[in-house]
C-alpha cells in the first residue's frame, strides 16, 4: 500500500527469503482516506502489509517518534502485520553503507555527502559518518525551506529533540511529498548543496523533488529504490552511479517496507518481533549487497 501514484501499481511473483510470494503494489494517489480503507480491506486477507510513501516511526538515538497520520494508517489493520520498513532502515541501510565503504565504487572516506533527509533514516546517517564522510543534513532546508545546513550528528539529534515530537503531529502532506506532488517536475531548492556533494543520499522522492537541472556530473545517488524513469532522469542530469540499499532480488529492487513485509511473512512475525538477528540472517542468506548501477554504462555492478 503506497500513498504514491496508482499509476505505478504492479504485481509480481518472487522468491523472497526462501518463500514464494506474490508482491502487489497498490497506490492511493495521496488520498489518506482511500489508503485507510484499502488497509482495512486487506486486513486478514494478506500475510503482511507494507506502507510506502510515508513513515510511521522515526528512530533517533534511542528515541522513537510516531507520525500521527502513519499510525492512523497502521491501525486500520488489526490482524495482518503492517510495517513501514523502519526496521530495514535501521539494519539494512547501515549494512549497505558498510558494504559500499568496503567495495566501492564510490570512495566514502572523505566524500562529501548530502542527505536530503536524515531524520527518517538516522541509521544511514550514523553509518555514513562512521565511514568518514563529510556530512550535510538537509532536513531543515528541504522539509521546511529553512536555509540552515546541519553538519553533525549531535546537532541533528539536538534539533530532532526540539522538533520531531511536534512535527510528527502535522498532516503527512506538510512533511512529506505525497500523491501527485511525487510526480511533479523537480524544482531546484538549495541547488548549491547538491552541486557541492559527491554523494546525494536519502529518500528518493525528496532527492527528486528538489533536483537541480544540471551540474550533477559524476555524482552518486544513494537511496532506497528507484524506477527506470527515475534512473533515466538522473542519467540525463549527469549522475554516474545509482546505489539502492535494497538488494536485487528476483531481478528487481523492492522498497524497505516491502522487504520488511516479506520478512514478516517469511518468518511469520509481526514487525516488533523482528530482531536484528532476523535481519542479519536474512541478509546473509540473500548474500546481501546493495544494487549498484553505473548509469554511464547502463551496467549493474556488484
Amino acid at each position, binding site marked *: 500500500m503506497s500513498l504514491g501514484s496508482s499509476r505505478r501499481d504492479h504485481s509480481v511473483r518472487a522468491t523472497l527469503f526462501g518463500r514464494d510470494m506474490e508482491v502487489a503494489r497498490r497506490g492511493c494517489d495521496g488520498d489518506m482516506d482511500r489508503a485507510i480503507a484499502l488497509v482495512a480491506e486487506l486486513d486478514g486477507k494478506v500475510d503482511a502489509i507494507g506502507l510506502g510513501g510515508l513513515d510511521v516511526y522515526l528512530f533517533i538515538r534511542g528515541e522513537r517518534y510516531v507520525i500521527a497520520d502513519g499510525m492512523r494508517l497502521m491501525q486500520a489493520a488489526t490482524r495482518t502485520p503492517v510495517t513501514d520498513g523502519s526496521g530495514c532502515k535501521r539494519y539494512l541501510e547501515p549494512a549497505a553503507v558498510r558494504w559500499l565503504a568496503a567495495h566501492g565504487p564510490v570512495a566514502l572516506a572523505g566524500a562529501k555527502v548530502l542527505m536530503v533527509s536524515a531524520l527518517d533514516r538516522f541509521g544511514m546517517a550514523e553509518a555514513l559518518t562512521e565511514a568518514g564522510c563529510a556530512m550535510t543534513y538537509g532536513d*531543515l532546508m528541504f*522539509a*521546511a*525551506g*529553512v*536555509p*540552515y545546513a546541519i553538519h553533525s550528528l549531535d546537532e541533528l539529534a539536538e*534539533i530532532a*529533540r*526540539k*522538533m520531531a515530537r*511536534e*512535527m510528527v*503531529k*502535522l*498532516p503527512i502532506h*506538510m512533511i512529506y511529498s505525497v500523491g501527485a506532488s511525487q510526480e511533479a517536475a523537480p524544482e531546484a531548492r538549495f541547488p548549491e548543496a547538491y552541486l557541492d556533494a559527491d554523494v546525494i543520499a536519502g529518500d528518493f522522492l525528496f532527492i527528486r523533488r528538489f533536483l537541480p537541472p544540471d551540474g550533477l556530473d559524476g555524482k552518486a545517488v544513494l537511496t532506497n529504490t528507484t524506477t527506470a524513469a527515475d534512473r533515466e532522469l538522473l542519467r540525463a542530469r549527469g549522475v554516474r552511479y545509482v546505489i539502492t540499499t535494497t538488494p536485487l532480488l528476483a531481478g528487481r529492487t523492492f522498497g524497505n517496507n516491502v522487504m520488511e513485509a516479506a520478512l514478516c511473512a517469511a518468518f511469520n512475525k509481526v514487525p516488533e518481533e523482528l530482531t536484528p538477528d532476523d535481519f542479519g540472517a536474512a541478509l546473509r542468506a540473500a548474500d546481501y549487497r546493495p544494487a549498484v548501477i553505473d548509469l554511464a554504462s547502463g551496467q549493474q555492478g556488484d
Partner: protein
Amino acid sequence: MAAADELTRALDGFVERFAAEPRLKAMTAGWDRTIEVRADDLPAPYWLRIEGGVLRRPDEAPGKPDMAISANSDLIRDLFSGRISPTEPYLTGDLRLLASEADVMRLDVITLMVWGE
C-alpha cells in the same frame, strides 16, 4: 482571559529567547516578515517584525502584515511563553494562521527552536 500586559511580557520574552539562539539568525536569513498577532478578546493587535535575522516587537504596525496569528488571549500568552506548542491548537483550529503553508512551516520551526524540548 489574559491581560494585555501579560501578552506584552510573553511576546517580549519570545523576542529575548529568539535573540539568545544564534542559529535563528541564519535560519531566518532572507525571510523578512511582518506578523500581526491578534487576541480575539483584546482590542488592539500586537506586531512582530523579523528582518535581517533579528526579531523585534514594534508598538505600531510596521507595515502590511505578511502573516496573521489569532486566538484567544490565554492561548496567545501560553504559546509565546512556551507553555504550549503551536501544532495542536493549529490543527484543532483554536490557533488560526493566515499565511502560506511554507511560512507556517517556517514559523513552526522558529517556535520549536525557541521553545523545543
